């Protein structure tokens, strides 16, 4: 194999992104989860910058800046504030059997790689082989959402899923049009605000952020 240096760097960053997804899947503490999310955003920014630099696509610089501002600075800050206000900063969540979750995660990664392989062979971009990793990140974030029972980690899982989607967009097609990107950024932002309000409502109603309480729909 003879890849250019830039695509080797992108591959390395993609691998780190996948690793961070696994770390988020198995992290018990909410605080570390937020830090991991910020780190994932930072890796995403770096990979977008490398893609922008190596392909000369100028709009990717803007989207890298947007990613940095939103996913490394604003969202982690909002989340930090939120968990401080909700007083769940040191919450430790009991997860179902971490080794099992990891094995399920590995199966998901194999699945994602197999699905993405024929698609990425059609693509002509230098980052085509990272499509499988992007898909795997999305699936792992999905699994993170499924295995959590508290509201805040679920939202972080949702945001991580958006990270994976964004990475898929950069790797497959060198990013989406600017309008779409702004739209998604705004969506994520607004979603975060609405969910933040929901957190307080859920806690006020049930005295806990455990969303299993939401399964009971009866009036008491």
């Amino acid at each position, binding site marked *: *194999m003879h*890849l250019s240096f830039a695509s*080797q*760097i992108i*591959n*390395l960053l*993609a*691998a*780190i992104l*996948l*690793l961070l997804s*696994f770390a988020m899947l*198995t992290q018990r503490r909410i605080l570390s989860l937020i830090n991991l999310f910020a780190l994932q955003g930072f890796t995403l920014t770096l990979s977008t910058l490398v893609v922008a630099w190596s392909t000369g696509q100028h709009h990717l610089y803007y989207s890298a800046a947007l990613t940095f501002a939103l996913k490394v600075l604003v969202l982690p800050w909002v989340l930090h504030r939120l968990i401080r206000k909700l007083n769940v900063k040191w919450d430790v969540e009991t997860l179902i059997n*971490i*080794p099992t979750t*990891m094995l399920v*995660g*590995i199966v998901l*990664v*194999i699945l994602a*790689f197999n699905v993405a*392989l024929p698609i990425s062979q059609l693509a002509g971009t230098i980052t085509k*082989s*990272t499509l*499988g*990793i992007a898909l795997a990140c999305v699936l792992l974030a999905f699994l993170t959402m499924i295995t959590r029972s508290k509201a805040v980690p679920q939202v972080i899982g949702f945001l991580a899923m958006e990270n994976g989607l964004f990475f898929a967009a950069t790797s497959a097609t060198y990013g989406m049009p600017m309008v779409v990107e702004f739209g998604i950024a705004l969506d994520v932002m607004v979603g975060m605000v609405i969910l933040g309000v929901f957190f307080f409502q859920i806690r006020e109603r049930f005295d806990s952020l455990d969303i299993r309480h939401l399964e009971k729909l009866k009036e008491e």
Partner: protein
Amino acid sequence: MISWSGLVAQLTEILLAVLLAPVLQGWVNQCRAWMQNKSGPGILQPYRTLRKLFAKEAVLAHNASPLFRATPYVLFACMVLAAAIVPILGTDLPFSPAADAIALVGIFALARVFISLAAMDIGTAFGSLGARREMMVGFLAEPALLMSLFTASLISHSTSLATIVQHLTQAHFVIYPSLAFAGVAFTMVSLAENARIPVDNPSTHLELTMIHEAMVLEYSGRHLALIELSAALKLFVYSCIGIALFFPFGIAEGGDALGLVLALPALVAKLAVGGFAMALIEMLSAKMRIFRAPEYLGTAFLLAVLAMLIHFLLET
């Protein structure tokens, strides 16, 4: 056909491994002492311990079977054999076709089985407790170790360690994300296998926590000396495998004398850095509960499997 120069290089390597192994252990202990603001016993302390133990009389329990007597020798032989097939200085090793990476893991497993059997042989509670824990750690660590070795062998299309190292040193500079993952997994496994801090504490005799020390409690004199030397050799061999697979720069290709001479300072420098890093890891982490070990080794296995998958996706 074994050439004379190859044989000489091979014997030099084995001798070097046996001589340097206690020094490496002493260096790790010394670094740890420095980080704890202690003056430390000096890097030659393991030699002094060995001399003391070899001079002492070996005491055996009445009900000790021949297996108990044979185990220290089997253990030492296993570790010497492992040292013989790992490319420490050069890749021209006449012994290396005898065993590849998979057989190497097998040799370590053989040593583990023997020491566990010997620990249970006397019938003390501590011995069997340590043996059970060792087997648990072993069966979790082995798949992760194999997977990380497989990643390196996938890159070079061979399971022979000498060929892997040759391939990695010859290729021009390429970033292998898979190799980085495998390297982290290998580090985690080697900490567990060498009874180092996240899994076991080598400097404690507290019965609730010890694994390796619990198994060798009944040994004394020259038997204990051989076991201590084997433990040091195991650490040395693991460090050398790590160096050979993940930092192979400086290992001599083939058997030229100059390359071998130049490889020695490179090896010593890399071992010094590696030993310091190991002491640092040990200082920064706390020993975990024994029931957390599956999680820790599961993570190592996950990393190794990810390394393989990433190799297939990104590097083929």
